[in-house]
């Protein structure tokens, strides 16, 4: 058994992360309710769907370009969790919810989530499977499909959560043109600028995951958030100490991390 380069640090870092995660999970399972920072975009969801109800127009939602097989799977997951909440609100307000998918494997999942939400609210008769659409695996065909929905169905609100690529600009522009309230959330750093400049509310990067955790009230999600915060603050301290040590000529901490 030969450790790889960097394998020793990786192993201990992994152990620490896993232990903290397990500890947080146990704590949340036992009923611990952590403090949650306010996320304005979540309030925005209610506003967006409420306005659609007033106007009697549909809400559009898309879980982005990613599926569950890429490194961005987490975004899709968060998007589907938020979708459950959005679908619930839509069912309550009697708003038609249009969902556009790019990934064939996400399509049945979104359909099931919306169906469950409408069922739980006793509004299953308002659920139309044809409103949950799959356009194409192809980026541009998907993009123009979404633009078509926003323009053709005269949506009142446009909600875009998940992993996005170049198509983000087209969606946001279409939504803006037709006067939609727009809410977006993604950790695709290249696309955040467009959302910041065109949307009413934006979940920047990990705010998307945080929103999902808040909405799901699922111990697995909440404990992940707690664990991340603990590790993050620990890293901030570690980096600060490491940098101070480097300033005074000691490279020990750096070397340890690269072991």
């Amino acid at each position: 058994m030969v450790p790889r380069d960097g394998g020793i640090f990786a192993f201990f870092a992994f152990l620490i992360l896993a232990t903290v995660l397990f500890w947080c999970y146990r704590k949340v399972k036992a009923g611990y309710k952590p403090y949650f920072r306010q996320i304005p975009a979540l309030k925005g969801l209610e506003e967006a769907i409420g306005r659609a109800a007033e106007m009697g127009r549909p809400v559009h939602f898309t879980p982005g370009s990613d599926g569950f097989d890429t490194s961005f799977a987490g975004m899709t997951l968060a998007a589907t969790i938020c979708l459950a909440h959005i679908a619930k609100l839509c069912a309550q307000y009697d708003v038609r919810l249009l969902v556009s998918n790019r990934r064939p494997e996400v399509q049945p999942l979104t359909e099931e989530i919306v169906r469950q939400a409408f069922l739980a609210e006793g509004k299953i008769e308002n659920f139309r499977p044809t409103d949950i659409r799959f356009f194409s695996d192809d980026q541009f065909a998907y993009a123009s499909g979404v633009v078509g929905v926003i323009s053709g169905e005269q949506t009142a609100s446009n909600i875009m959560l998940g992993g996005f690529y170049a198509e983000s600009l087209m969606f946001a522009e279409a939504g803006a043109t037709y006067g939609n309230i727009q809410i977006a959330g993604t950790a695709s750093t290249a696309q955040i600028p467009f959302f910041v400049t065109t949307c009413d509310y934006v979940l920047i990067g990990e705010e998307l995951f945080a929103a999902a955790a808040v909405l799901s009230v699922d111990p697995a999600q909440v404990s992940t958030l707690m664990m991340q915060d603990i590790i993050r603050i620990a890293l901030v301290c570690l980096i600060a100490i490491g940098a101070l040590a480097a300033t005074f000529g000691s490279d020990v901490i750096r070397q340890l991390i690269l072991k």
Partner: protein
Amino acid sequence: MKFGITVAALLNLGLWSFLIGDNRVFRLVQSLYVGAAVAHTFVLAYRNTLIPNLWQPFTEGKYVLIVPMVLGLALFTRVTKKYSHISKIPMTFIVGVGAALAIRGALLSDLATQVASVMVALNTVDNIVMLIGTLCTLVYFTFTIKPTPVTRTMSYIGRYFMMAAFGAAFGNTVMARMSLLIGRLQFLWGDWLGIIK
């Protein structure tokens, strides 16, 4: 003027007709594209992966490959209503492999190397700003820890660093998109019409 180039140019213009509004020509051209793109991805995967990495070694006696073959075929149950639950097994396999690799990449590259690379001697303005920016951005993304005056200030600074970064990203994206259109105009004016040499 080659026939193929004219076809390509006309299809290009057909797609751009979307700029005026969604229309029949656009949808037709787009249908061509969608069919071709999905087919091309599969053909390459078939010729470069399924044949050399699955079929050839299998026929040469590596019978353990029957497992991914069955898993792969099970993936197709997804398009049926009745048996789609079977596809959960290969899906779990794909996601499991991907998750393990994600941990590997995150630990060694993004955690170890990136963290170590910020631990620089604070003897230049660049290094100090770099450290402040990284730490404040990290603090911005804490959600379950009650803010203190220090973390609140850091969080604000972090947000401004990010907005500057997003500004840079916007500028770069404008550049990139202009380049893509320049490429098409070079094709239309040059390769097709011969106006530019």
